């Protein structure tokens, strides 16, 4: 009987937290994938995230910026200091002004932010038929459905159904709200050549780049879950001890 009171109490606290789930708006039916980073113990599949970075660098970064990410952050998916320095050095960034007051450029450093493909939003629109490719730093968190949505979007290009008139320069996509997206299909089979020999099917590329986008959107996730497991275990023990103390204290009360 004793744990019942406690369970009741926990339920009371937790119950309302779950209610909003039932209230979620009717999201489109998205096919679900298994993700290495899902669940309470999930981590980013290092190899997949590194391949995903390659896809980002060779494909997406032509249009999409990633302004909140440093090159050094790549250590989170297993790149070592030397690899990161080499990756950063492939770009030219502004070094401010030199001693003569002249602006100059220098090779990128690990402490630099990812270099954006366009100088500003207007330039990005001009190059993309008027549409703005959104920054990808937290893009995965910014869409209902998260990783599943990104994957489905990237693999969801198809011919428009008969009778549907497409806007100028628009592409049909099964999962994009409204089905007309300004981004042309970015991924195709063998779009990139993976150095680890993985076959670059469109599904594989989409899965890899989505894993990478999940990492850049939530770089703290692995540490968060590790700390969380410790916190929950500690709190569970503390709850047990506290409850035992409470029962001791109340043992002699007629109530």
């Amino acid at each position, binding site marked *: 009987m004793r744990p019942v009171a406690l369970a009741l109490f926990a339920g009371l606290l937790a119950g309302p937290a779950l209610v909003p789930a039932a*209230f979620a*708006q009717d999201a489109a039916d998205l096919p679900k994938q298994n993700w290495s980073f899902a669940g309470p113990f999930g981590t980013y599949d290092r190899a997949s995230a590194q391949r995903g970075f390659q896809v980002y660098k060779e494909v997406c970064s032509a249009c999409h910026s990633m302004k909140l990410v440093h090159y050094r952050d790549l250590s989170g998916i297993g790149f070592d200091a030397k690899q990161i320095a080499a990756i950063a050095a492939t770009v030219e960034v502004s070094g401010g002004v030199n001693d003569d007051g002249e602006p100059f450029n220098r090779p990128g450093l690990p402490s630099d932010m990812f270099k954006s493909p366009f100088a500003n939003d207007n330039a990005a629109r001009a190059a993309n038929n008027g549409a703005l490719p959104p920054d990808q730093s937290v893009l995965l968190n910014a869409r*209902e459905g998260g990783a599943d949505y990104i994957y489905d979007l990237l693999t969801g290009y198809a011919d428009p159904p008969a009778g549907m008139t497409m806007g100028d320069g628009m592409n049909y996509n099964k999962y994009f709200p409204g089905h007309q997206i300004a981004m042309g299909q970015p991924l195709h089979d063998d779009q990139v050549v993976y150095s680890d020999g993985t076959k670059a099917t469109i599904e594989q590329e989409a899965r890899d780049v989505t894993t990478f986008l999940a990492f850049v959107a939530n770089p703290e996730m692995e540490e968060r879950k590790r700390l969380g497991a410790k916190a929950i275990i500690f709190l569970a023990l503390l709850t047990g001890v506290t409850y035992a103390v409470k029962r001791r204290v109340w043992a002699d009360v007629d109530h």
Partner: protein
Amino acid sequence: MAGLHNSEFSNPVINWIDTRLPIFTMMQKEYGSFPTPKNFNYFWNFGALATVNLLLMIATGVFLAMNYTPNTSMAFESVQRIMRDVNYGWLLRYLHSNGASMFFIVVYIHIFRGMYYGSYKKPRELLWILGVVILLLMMATAFMGYVLPWGQMSYWGATVITNLFSAIPLVGDSIVTLLWGGFSVDNPTLNRFFSLHYLMPFVLIAVVFLHVAALHITGSNNPLGIDVKTPQDTLPFHPYYTAKDSVGMCVWAMVLAALVFFAPNFLGDPANFIPANPLQTPAEIVPEWYFLPFYAILRSVPDKLGGVSMMFGSIIVLFILPWLDTSPVRSARFRPIYRVLMWVLVIDLLALGAVGAHRPEGIWVVIGRASTAWYFLHFLVLLPLLGKFEKTLPLPDSISQPVLKGGIGGGPLAGAAAAQSMEKN
């Protein structure tokens, strides 16, 4: 009336201070020996939980403010920087955002407790009114806090809600201009919201102090809703209720940890990961979950002024609840009809919450109107009448009497009471 306090503390340092400023005597009186009804169930944890939750919000908020930039061109990025580049910044931010949700869960349960056991009735009317003031302040604080990260929902939520004030006749537009500090939600709005968001929790502390001061004058209500008659009915607050509150706090911390560490964005809206864009209205403007029932009431009335009045009215009725409820019996345990009505009201509010999360189309309009009507019917019609017609059950003579007999039955919460009385087995 001046004069040194005759302190009973033996520790010389404490005695020295207490003689000059008797805070130790006060703490001992109000939280040590304070006589508290012996029959509390776990619903009586939630006031203490709310206090701790408020402190958590202030503690995390102060550190967030050290790294936050209240400028429309930098606010979004500064928040993302806190998440990425500040040591344990993600922990601070997720504690603060999920802490706000927990705060509302705790306070909503706390209010439910007050309603179910009739804690608002004489002589606790003012205590209750201070509680409703706390609720309003909390809502204002949470609303302004949500604007600070300057995402799409921040911006458009602020626009929709501040615009409501324009419905007020004559002065409405001036009020809106004042809130905005200009002619649209912009940098001045963000600046004043930040300033007020930092200020209000300290006002809350002051009102909570008054709330607790009033509580310590009337003494606590209890699940039976009858007055304390003899010292046998009470226990000293410490160690009995400090121990019991600690259990609740551990469970509260566990729920919060589960959210923060494993589902930190579960209660949030993805659209707030998109920087605010005044030129692009999101497909759907939805407030945080804890405002959904009120948002539903707002949208259920076809007229703007009417909707705004009903929305604010839904909280105003709480102020006069002590006088709307005419029954002399406090606890729902002895009020067979009121007990059912309380649970119907809970379902009604959940329905309103669901309505608030959906576009006002089709069936949702019907549900929204019906549950809005029921909400006001409950408070304005049923409660005043119920006091006259309801046949209440006989009240026990004292708190110790039913306790000694091993608990009395009845009511959906009898399970908790029974579990409690069996604890000594």
